[in-house]
């Protein structure tokens, strides 16, 4: 179980403090949890904070009873936290096989690596020796990023907007990937998403807006409210009506 206790974070912008996260308290124990909410609400900051990329100004992060607030990215990764970036990083020279192998943390065989790629709907033999460079499309690197998390087989996996930057056709496939993953992956999955179809497979939904948790509960409780609330920009909504 992952627990966030009184997490706050602010950045200094033009010598003015801007609060990004305000006293967040959350418990994540369910199999699939989705964090949603408007852009700029603090979702990605929260995900990066769990992975150790950003340190909170105050508060504690507890993983299975252990305080990991002061642990580095590497230490948290080794404790079982995986993180799929919203914008996957490209590497000149490192191949898909290299990355899957690094993710698995051991010398896996090509058939094993192919297994992970098939899970995300990539034909392994076309990709295994490709470099993760600019020649791959946004949808392809996104899938490889997800395959890397699968290869890690850790107890806590975070996906930051897996749907961002991919076309609609790829997105249909991606939903299937997550539906399949729901059954296969062990431990907790935390997905940051705006997509209704991803929200539809959540055991728990957390709504984050303006750095605060404004709603939290089961899909049945939260979804109906989300559908009619206007957490989107009111001016924009006015124009649309």
């Amino acid at each position, binding site marked *: 179980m992952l627990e966030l206790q009184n997490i706050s974070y602010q950045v200094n912008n033009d010598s003015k403090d801007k609060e990004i996260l305000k006293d967040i308290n959350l418990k994540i124990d369910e199999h699939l949890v989705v964090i949603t909410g408007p852009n700029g609400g603090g979702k990605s900051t929260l995900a990066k904070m769990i992975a150790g990329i950003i340190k909170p100004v105050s508060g504690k992060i507890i993983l299975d009873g252990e305080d990991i607030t002061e642990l580095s990215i590497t230490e948290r990764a080794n404790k079982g936290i995986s*993180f799929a970036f919203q914008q996957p990083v490209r590497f000149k020279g490192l191949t898909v096989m290299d990355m899957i192998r690094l993710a698995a943390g051991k010398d896996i065989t090509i058939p094993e690596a192919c297994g992970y790629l098939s899970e995300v709907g990539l034909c392994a033999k076309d990709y295994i020796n490709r470099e993760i460079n600019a020649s791959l499309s946004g949808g392809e690197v996104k899938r490889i990023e997800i395959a890397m998390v699968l290869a890690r087989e850790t107890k806590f996996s975070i996906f930051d907007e897996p749907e961002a930057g991919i076309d609609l056709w790829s997105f249909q496939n991606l939903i299937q990937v997550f539906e399949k993953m729901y059954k296969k992956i062990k431990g907790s999955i935390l997905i940051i998403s705006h997509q209704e179809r991803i929200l539809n497979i959540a055991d728990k939904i957390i709504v984050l807006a303006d750095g605060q948790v404004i709603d939290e509960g089961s899909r049945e409780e939260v979804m109906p409210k989300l559908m009619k609330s206007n957490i989107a920009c009111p001016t924009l909504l006015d124009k649309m009506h």
Partner: protein
Amino acid sequence: MDTIEKNLIAQVADIHKVPEGAYNIRSNGELAGRSTTANIDIVTKQDKSGIDIIVKPDTKNESIHIPVVLSMSGLKDMVYNDFYIGENSDVTIVAGCGIHNCGVDTSEHDGIHTFYIKKGAKVKYIEKHYGEGDGKGKRILNPTTIINIEEDGYMEMDSVQIKGVDSTKRDTKAYLSDGATLVIHEKIMTHGSQTAETNFEVDLDGKRSSANVVSRSVAKEKSKQIFNSKINGNNECNGHTECDAIIMDEASVSAIPQLTANDIDAALIHEAAIGKIAGEQLIKLMTLGLTEAEAEEQIVNGFLK
């Protein structure tokens, strides 16, 4: 040959036993082994130090290994090797120089390699440079390569210098006739206070000739690298030069591409990028459980692979 020399040969030529095909091994300025084949002859030059390598026309899928090793501290070695590649042949040439210097004097090997690639011939040329030894003596390598490619000839040159060479100045000059193609891949890693200077100059003289000169390098600690790449388009031709460098610590890298088009149908491109390892690359690998140092190593190794 002793163990040190055998190890140097393994490093520069990937040879662990006696190589197949033609070979010429030069050790501490002396001939240490030679073999020729029905199609490939190797002849010692009479007027100066060096060899002529003569490949008969239509020779296919044969290889030539010509490693040079220096294990005597303070030795200055200079050779002239000429390669005559017959029409329509297709061969692989593996050259390389390994220096082991555990003394206090400077060891230096300067090789001048000249290629005459005849009509329709195809050459893959692999050159590796390696230095080792804990003495204070410097290890210096200055290779010069002159390439002449006749009509529809093709040459691919891979040069690699990863470790242990204190100072290197590489000059490569190429002249391409109609339909000739030249592809160069250079990989360099420098560390400590090493210096590496590369000068490429390609004359695209022939119609539809093309050249692609690509350098990838990593400069660590206080090392210095200079990459000069000139392409002259003198006819309807395609030229591309690219320098991609990772800079670390207090190192310094200069990339100086120069393109000259002397013909309206010359299409020439240069690209150069120098920068440190991207922070997000390190973070990504750290989220996979690598330490920062391990992540750095993976990125550098991948980049130079």
